[in-house]
């Protein structure tokens, strides 16, 4: 069988399905090829399932603390299997929703493994038959997968990737997580709250090492308060299985220690899915990080675009989605440029983290005359009412115009609050615009206004 279309998208993850929807919206005959599940990692094994399980952990935690709020709850315990069922139902609902959206938009979904024969011809090996798709433009959105780590012993059946950790039938007694990036920190939060004895190992000196140091400190404090064993500046050197349980050997500042755990979770790095796509044969340039693209999301082949994790760069679902829109528009004659100056990112730890723009350190190293404002949630009425007042809002600005360079939030609902900062950065707002914006009372958003005021020593509530 053969299919002719205007735009063919390979991969139906968040980047791919959005690109397909946008292309169809613009009137293109659009096909999307998916080898596994619609929605990709984000919907099936990433963002959504982890958030679903984290919510379970959160409700569990709240039930445990209910008496602090004057609510007496007896017999609080976790039913992991029920939590998994809830997660699966939500994932099904969302992936079903995406399928419906694609169908409504008139996007044809082809199941199978895609391989480029030329920049515009794709062969899809399906379960029963194979198809040839000839497209005017192709958008590659094949995503990424966990990268293996070269550590001796890191190949046993007790070693999990994030996919495996989400599908566990039963909770382990103990878990050691390698890597305290967003994925590691979220899993540590989740499993620890669910009663798993959790150890978090990070090679760099602090957790969430790419984020602003103030945020790292707050998250590390939160993890330790919840009794997660946090080992920073520490490296896993090997795993031996002489005993009944794996022994993880860790080299830290204080020398080598060994931790005995039931399970090990690797949460370090992801690798672009560039293999088996026929990229080399079609002359598509691939670098170490992934497919090389320009600011129009176009590869070195004029009719071939790539978006999302497969390009390396910032591997976030919302970046892939935005790139997907831009690639679809450019493939159909547009001329939109992808900007990265205002990309928010969130970590669903306790307290939650959300950040956009430059860290204080990065702003200084870029030569700005940096001015910082901070406001702690413990001085915010709504946060106190909620009983959730750890953390702060930090605003990084420069002295010349008061340009807002970065907004960093750690605390309740940080991921929902960050958009004010994203908009501020995208619209090149200065402190004056934040100062002049009325924030509703009583809300957590007041902390952003106060942080902006505090840059110039004008904060009112501290």
């Amino acid at each position, binding site marked *: 069988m053969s299919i002719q279309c205007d735009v063919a998208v390979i991969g139906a993850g968040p980047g791919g399905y959005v690109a397909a929807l946008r292309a169809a919206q613009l009137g293109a005959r659009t096909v999307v090829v998916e080898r596994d599940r619609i929605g990709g990692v984000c919907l099936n094994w990433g963002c959504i399932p982890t958030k679903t399980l984290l919510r379970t952990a959160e409700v569990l935690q709240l039930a445990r603390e209910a008496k602090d709020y004057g609510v007496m709850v007896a017999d609080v315990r976790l039913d992991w299997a029920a939590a998994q069922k809830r997660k699966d139902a939500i994932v099904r609902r969302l992936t079903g929703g995406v399928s419906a959206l694609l169908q409504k938009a008139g996007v044809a979904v082809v199941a199978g493994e895609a391989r480029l024969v030329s920049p515009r011809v794709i062969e899809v090996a399906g379960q029963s038959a194979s198809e040839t798709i000839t497209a005017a433009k192709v958008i590659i959105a094949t995503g990424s997968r966990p990268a293996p780590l070269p550590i001796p012993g890191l190949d046993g059946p007790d070693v999990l990737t994030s996919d495996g950790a989400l599908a566990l039938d039963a909770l382990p007694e103990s878990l050691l997580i390698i890597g305290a990036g967003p994925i590691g920190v979220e899993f540590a939060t989740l499993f620890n709250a669910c009663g798993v004895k959790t150890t978090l190992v990070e090679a760099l000196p602090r957790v969430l090492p790419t984020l602003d140091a103030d945020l790292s400190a707050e998250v590390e404090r939160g993890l330790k308060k919840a009794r997660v064993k946090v080992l920073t500046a520490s490296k896993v050197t090997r795993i031996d299985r002489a005993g009944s349980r794996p022994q993880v050997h860790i080299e830290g500042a204080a020398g080598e220690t060994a931790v005995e755990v039931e399970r090990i979770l690797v949460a370090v790095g992801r690798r672009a899915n560039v293999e088996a796509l026929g990229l080399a044969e079609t002359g598509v340039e691939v670098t170490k990080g992934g497919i*090389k*693209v*320009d*600011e*129009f999301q176009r590869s*070195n082949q004029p009719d071939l675009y790539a978006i999302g994790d497969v390009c390396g760069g910032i591997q976030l679902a919302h970046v892939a989605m935005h790139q997907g829109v831009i690639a679809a528009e450019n493939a159909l004659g547009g001329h939109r440029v*992808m900007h*990265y*100056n205002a990309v928010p990112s969130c970590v669903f730890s306790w307290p939650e983290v959300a950040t956009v723009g430059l860290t204080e350190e990065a702003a200084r190293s*870029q030569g700005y005359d940096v001015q910082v404002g901070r406001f702690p949630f413990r001085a915010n009425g709504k946060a106190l009412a909620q009983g959730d007042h750890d953390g702060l809002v930090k605003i990084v600005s420069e002295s*010349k*115009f*008061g*340009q807002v360079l970065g907004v960093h939030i750690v605390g309740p609902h940080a991921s929902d609050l960050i958009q004010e900062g994203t908009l501020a950065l995208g*619209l*090149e*707002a*200065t402190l*004056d*615009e934040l100062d002049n914006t009325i924030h509703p009372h009583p809300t957590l958003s007041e902390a952003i206004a106060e942080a902006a005021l505090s840059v110039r020593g004008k904060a009112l509530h501290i």
Partner: protein
Amino acid sequence: MPVDVILPMLGETMDEATIVQWLVRVGEPVKKGEPLFQVETDKAILDVNSPADGILASVEFGEGSKVPVLSVVGRVALVGEALTTRRTETPEARHVEREPRAATVVSQAAPRRAISPRARKLAADAGVDIAAVEGTGPAGRIVEKDVQRAIAQMKAAPPRVAATPLARKAAAQAGIELQRVRGTGPGGRIVLADLSPKQTAGDTALSATSRQGKVTSTPVTGVRKIIAEHMAASSATAAAVTLVTEADATELAHVRNAVRERYAADGVTFSYTDLLVWIVARALRDMPYMNARLVGNEIEQHDSINIGVAVDTERGLLVPVIRGAGEMNVVQLAKALRELVQRARSGKSLPDDLTGGTFTITNLGMYEIDAFTPLINLPECAILGIGRLNSKPVVRDEQISVRTMVTFSLTFDHRVIDGAPAARFLQRIKVLVEQPTLMLV
């Protein structure tokens, strides 16, 4: 009554100018004929003198404003006169006409103004606030013409520009006019990066992978705008034909060396362009049909030979004109051209330096260009392109000898001149170049 300070017509093609600087502040004394303010036209910066002795009473357009020519830009109060402006209500103005009841809240609140009914209706229709309109009728009464001028000024006012708060602040500090900046943000909004072509660190990495590269946009204004309009008009309207011929300039080279030596002590230098202007002026005198301009439906043949010479300046291509080139000897021509070029390059051309040409010469020889197709400087009817002087083997008297050769490209407007007369003109130049002694007869 104070005397109006008018922005004069400073050149034929000029319809607006930018006020660069007021040399006198309001309230300071001025003397008739002394510089009052500086304006920048598309071609030069010029001083405008005070029209009267007195005190500078008001300034209507600040520094940096673009002003149509013949506008009132300020007023000079004569000595002894009170520093009042016409906006002040006068008692007699009040009973010239009563404010009708239909007047808007705004105009009721404003001081009552004497205004003609037609002017009032026009102002109301166009939404002009009459309180801000200058009355030029009897006793300062506002007449229809005044409102029309106010409407024109309203239209000329720059529209609101979309820019981010940061871009606004940075532009204000750097003195950049946002009207001149092209925005690349959402909906054409001006963002910080639009103010300077400098890239941010984040952009650089991405641009390196782009085959499109970074695009730097510069608004087409000033000299560039004039050039753009002239060249497009030339290209679009003239029936341009280019003739190319090669001339033996060996003798001319001898002449150049001779005059150079002779005048070296006087500090006069001679370029080939000087000599060629001299020769072209002679050819134009011999064949006056080439010294013509097409204006409207009429071909003007000019007595005065005014030769423009294309000059590459920092601000772009300028064409200063040697007036009366037909009456000058080569030394006078060389001196005149030197001065014109200097003024053009330093942005100090006088208004008449750049207008009134009847023929243009353009020389690209220094860039090793031989033949090209110059665009006619309308309304002139022809332009001569001079190529490089180059030693070449040529056949002369059945012998191969090395001669200094030059290529001429004559573009003419076939609407005005036919091919044969144009060719005869080019041939005439060739002959004069090859046998400069003919310049004597």
